């Protein structure tokens, strides 16, 4: 190879690397990290990105150079030089990628080990997924439909599911874990800044999957203690609303008082009209039956898609609150 072509190749490679780097830096690829684990994951991400940009630039340079320089003329019937291989070169391009991926593996393994450490005294929160809602239960037995966490403390999420597989993820916290029925999976997060971030389900879990969303609110350590002692009043609202949220009713149903916009099942704002049409007794009886035994009456235009589990899943007192809440809110 002539010196000129080496320089040209190098020039294209540097240009490609520069363009790729601009892409990498100026587009905000990752959300702002909100946990120690997320920061470490971001480090692995950038470590890998540097290596990938280097590899990409080399390939892009050789490709671009070849496309421009080795183009055959329209009537060129000649063949190229009969080069069959080059043992040293082949060893080089076997060895270098092997070294690079080993480096990424080592960094990844170290970060994985660190991200699994919960420390001596973690806060343990039980996470139960159901179609299509999250329930977060604290050591004092209180449970909520949204997650509240203290800043700067190791939190161990004990994740399970009551029906199918779901997956717990908050993009800002970065950590993700599937919720598997019959199995308790642990996930460690250490929130590093206060704020409210989305929690979503990332494993296809049925009709309401897209709307199986919640929030995680990170408070200061002091604020969190106060919140927990006060019985989690931050949730606020009618007691029925909490039941509504914990059981994920909003994943499928529209209900204005709860800001729910699901469209899988009937609109609960029209409950009164619906009850009249169904003609199955007074409103609250109809509502209760529809929750406990949804197959008893199916609104026209819908199928028997509602899970039959709520009768056993919701305790009687909570059920009463929910029925009251729905019947009052209905027009």
């Amino acid at each position, binding site marked *: 190879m002539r010196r000129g072509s080496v320089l040209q190749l190098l020039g294209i490679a540097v240009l490609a690397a520069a363009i790729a780097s601009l892409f990498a830096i100026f587009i905000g690829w990752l959300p702002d990290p909100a946990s120690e684990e997320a920061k470490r994951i971001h480090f692995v991400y950038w470590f890998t990105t540097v290596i990938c940009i280097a590899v990409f630039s080399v390939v892009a340079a050789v490709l671009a150079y070849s496309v421009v320089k080795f183009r055959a003329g329209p009537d060129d019937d000649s063949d190229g030089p009969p080069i*069959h291989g080059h043992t040293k070169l082949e060893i080089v391009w076997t060895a270098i990628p092997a070294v690079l991926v080993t480096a990424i593996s080592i960094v990844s393994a170290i970060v994985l080990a660190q991200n699994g450490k919960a420390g001596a005294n973690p806060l343990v929160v039980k996470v139960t997924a159901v179609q299509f809602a999250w329930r977060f239960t604290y050591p004092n037995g209180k449970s909520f439909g949204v997650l509240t966490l203290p800043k700067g403390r190791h939190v161990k999420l004990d994740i399970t599911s009551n029906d199918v597989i779901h997956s717990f993820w908050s993009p800002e916290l970065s950590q993700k874990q599937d919720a598997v029925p019959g199995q308790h999976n642990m996930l460690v997060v250490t929130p590093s800044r206060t704020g409210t971030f989305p929690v979503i389900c990332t494993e296809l879990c049925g009709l309401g*999957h897209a709307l199986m969303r919640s929030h995680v609110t990170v408070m200061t350590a002091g604020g969190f203690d106060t919140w927990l002692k006060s019985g989690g009043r931050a949730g606020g609202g009618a007691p029925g609303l909490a039941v509504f949220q914990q059981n994920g009713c909003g994943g499928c149903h529209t209900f204005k008082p709860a800001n729910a916009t699901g469209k899988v099942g009937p609109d609960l704002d029209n409950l009164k009209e619906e009850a009249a049409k169904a003609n199955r007794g007074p409103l609250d009886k109809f509502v209760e039956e529809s929750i406990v035994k949804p197959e008893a009456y199916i609104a026209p235009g819908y199928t028997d898609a509602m899970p039959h589990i709520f009768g056993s899943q919701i305790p009687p007192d909570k059920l009463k609150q929910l029925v009251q809440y729905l019947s009052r809110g209905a027009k």
Partner: protein
Amino acid sequence: MTVHEVQHEHAPAPRATGLRRLLVPGWLRIFWVTPLFFGLGLGLPVLIRWLAHWDPVWKGSVLVSVELVTTPLGFLVGLGGFDYWVRYASGRPTLPEDHSGHGAHSWRDYFRINTDHKVIGIQYVVTTIFFFCVGGLLAMLFRAELAQPGDQFFNPQTFNVLVSNHAALMIFLFIIPAFAGLGNYVIPLMLGAADMAFPRLNALSFWLLPIAGLMLIVGMVTPGGGPSAGWTCYAPLCSHQPLGQVFFNMGVQWAGASSIMTALNFLVTIITMRAPGMTFWRMPLLVWANFTTSLLVVIATPFIAGSQFFVMLDRVLHTNFFEAGGGGYVLGYQHIFWFYSHPAVYIMMLPGFGIISEVISVMSRKPIFGYRLMALSLMAILVLGFSVWAHHMFVAGMAGWLRVPMMVTSMVIAVPTGIKIFSWLATMWEGRIHFTTPMLFALGFLSMFVIGGLSGIYLASVPIDIHASDTYFIVAHIHYVLFGGSVFTIFAGIYYWFPKMTGRMYDERLGKLHFWLTFIGFNLTFFPMHFIGLQGMPRRVADYADRFADVNLFISIASFGLGASTLVFLFNMVRSWAHGAPAPGNPWRALTLEWQVSSPPPVFNFDEIPQVVGNPYEYGVPGAKHAIFGAPTPAPVPAD
């Protein structure tokens, strides 16, 4: 043997007349045998349930499961897929081979059991392109839904059905069988063989394919709802889906059976039917690629068959393979599924590697750089491919210790893959590159597959995968490897062998237009998905957070452009097949054997058996030959 006897043996059987026509294999027989088998599938379970006093006598899920075996079987019996074997097995004299099942003289010959590998190859390719179009249309339907957040056109059930079937059709009915089709056409020719080792099995394996495709499509419109648990069909969600799910479970079985039969056929053909002088180290890389792919198929595909049967049993017979409540092992499904479906990624990629090796070497007019290492890296991917399945399960909650070893093996696969990429680049270096349509697709593949490979490194790293798993980053990655990778190589292969298969040249200008529209549309559609994925948009959602609205609208518009680019391809193919300029035997001045015969080749491929004397890629080597015809060695007499 006298001339008279030979003619008698090769003459087609006399045409049947009157009612006897109903007994001849073909569509007339299909029209009465299929309903007969349908009746059997209906009658037997009902009879058994009635005799055993089981309630209800009519049970939908049981009947559907049985029917999806018996009805297609009836179709195949009617078509004549088993005639020869039934005669043989029942001790009756088999029909003398009259070769009437070989070759195609009119379009009708494509709609019967045809034992000619060239006809079967074209049957495969045309059928798979049909399913490619159906799968693409489904994608555009749900991209329309995703153009805006909220519900527009489809309810979540329909949306999930569209997503699930888009993936299932593209994987099981397009990419995997499209490679089987191209291989079917090309490999016997490349080996210097007259046909595949088992022509009747070959014919049967093709006809399982439309059955599988039809099953998936009918499943979508089944009363009660179609399969909507994604193409991965995770238990226990899929065990509690509407009836359409059974169509999915069984459709995958038929496609898988077709795949296994073809792979066995390839293996035996490649091992036993190479022309004299064609040693393993003289085989074209496409043959090497199909050899390794077939090994993968034969070893891995039974696992997905198992996973789908278990799920179906859980559903129909209330077994508890994957039901936590009954003591089942929920994650067992994923282990079994990915033990097939990760090797399946290589089943969908290695034949493409083979195609690219052919195209790049021929179009650059240079020998393949590092031929032996290229073949060995295929074998390395084959072996490593079986040790990485659990990287799909880093967040699934499987045994914690399994994560780091699976990460390391996944990373190591980058090494043989890198060898291939660098060797292709080195093959082009100092070549005389001809930018024909197949070469453009090969270059498109090379650049896109590098991006897909690099995003694969991110996903192999457990911590990054924990963040990116089940988001649009995954969607972007798999489309860079399966569309930018596999589909580009399929297009390269179709354009490259189009002259050989049809005897006509395609329109080069339309081909280039197709490439550029696809290349640009592809990148505009899938590159932004990396971004929304890392930012927090999960995959398989009908509705999403408002902050992703702009990017999704952009992606949807780009995807319609990408879809429209296929019209250029279809138009080019149809018009060129009908009116294209006649193709010479060897338009690319290639050395491999399929180009040393006429386009299209004679019915039995070679008028005389070639003698292989050298390597297949000796471009630029003065006086080098891959094979010679009319060699002094006595050609073996083809067995009757």
